């Protein structure tokens, strides 16, 4: 069933950290789904990446509930700390940062996902603490 495409792509994303051209070609051989379709789907979703990502992917929310709770300052703080902007990966390949849409933690704003795990009620101190623990 072609419905597996999204699931397959998520698996690759999880395993390799991104969806490479090679991986797309391999998937095309395996499933027969045209390359253009695979690429089209892979580039459509915010959580699928077609460029190499850092070891830790940060997806931080900037939708209204977070925005009303200081998310912009937290985002700026992370950008300065990691010296990257949204969509970029740090030089040491440790972090990728993506500013995105609501992650459903609006009652604990501001919030982010770090490798899919939720971190909420973010403050600068909390960011320091979270990032320091990561190897």
């Amino acid at each position, binding site marked *: 069933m072609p419905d597996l495409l999204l699931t397959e792509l*998520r698996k690759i994303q999880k395993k390799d950290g991104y969806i490479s051209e090679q991986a797309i070609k391999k998937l095309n051989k395996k499933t027969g789904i045209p390359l253009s379709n695979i690429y089209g789907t892979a580039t*459509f979703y915010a959580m699928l990446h077609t460029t190499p990502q850092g070891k830790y992917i940060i997806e931080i929310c900037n939708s209204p509930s977070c*925005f009303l*709770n200081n998310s912009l300052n937290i985002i700026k703080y992370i950008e300065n700390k990691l010296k990257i902007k949204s969509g970029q990966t740090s030089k040491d390949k440790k972090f990728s940062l993506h500013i995105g*849409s609501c992650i459903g933690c609006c009652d604990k704003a501001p919030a982010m996902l770090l490798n*899919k795990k939720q971190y909420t009620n973010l403050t600068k101190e909390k960011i320091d603490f979270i990032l320091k623990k990561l190897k």
Partner: protein
Amino acid sequence: MQIKKQTKGKALAKAKKLGQKATINLIKEKVLLGRGGAGFPTGTKWEMVYNEPEKEKYLICNADEGEPGTFKDKFILEKNPELVIEGIKIAMFAIGAKKAFIYLRGEYEYLENRLKKLIKKANIEIVVGAGAYICGDETAILESIEGKRGQARLKPPFPTVKGLYGKPTAINNVETLANVPLAIYYKDWNPNLRLYSLSGNVTKPGIYELPLGTKLCDLIKLGKPKNKIKAIYFGCFGGCMPHCEKTKLTPDDICGKDCIHGAGTIIAVDEKHSIVDVATNIAKFYEFESCGKCTPCREGTMRILALLENISLKNADMKDLNTLQELAEVIKETSFCGLGQTSTNHLLTALKYFRKEFEERIKEQKDRRRIR
């Protein structure tokens, strides 16, 4: 809370005893309306699928809760997932679907394992999304499950006629399906109890279960705001209005103010925040989430954002407010799907109720330039 009650499989047993037709009729009698935002009668939707002569039919549980400020489905999936699974099984039985899908948004991936355990041997497959607001749209969900870009389809045909893989499909929201077993099993089930997701400038945000018709200000009081609340946003798509004592939480009352009651999303904005900044923030959201399929929405959301950024940061003119209004109306009228059509509600209502804030910002910027 009604939504935390359990039925432990007894509602499913009762439905099986009643048979398909009678189960559908019971849901119709109990007036269970869809809780995803549109409020379509669930029993009627099921009946449409049931009546299709096709053998193969599908049920989809829409767990792609993406409207900013909404987290009630997550609450249900965390607190009472058993109820949702039983609701899915009842719906499958009623419409005659051999297979169901749960379309779980990528951000809620952590709920997948628990759900899998509860599904056991039932023919329910979980498809995890990967971050696309548009996939909350029912036809975009179909595309996404089929492995394509999650873009909306032209309607008609409606999914009840030609849905997943071209087969009749019922798509129900999590809160709707959770209420199915309750409606079937409990005589005193209250159809008017809704889950409200309260967030924004309140110190006690969270899920509040309240009857339709509750005064909006009573809900805000429960949230214990620190400062005076001046505006309420009903998510991004629902528009905004001034916070007033009289408004009641009913679709009619809120519609009268050009807003949408939707899925019970309430974002409170206090007087320390500027509506111009909130509007710019929401415009950014739409510019990011527009799927790019049609021109009014793809180009329009970009232009709206540029105009708003110009107003909030640089050198706009009063004329620009009219341009903004016109463009917002065109996008609303001509966009292909619901995302684009509702993408400017927030702006049109903001211009209606808070135009002064926009004018003041433009004046401020002008004065600043003069001093320089």
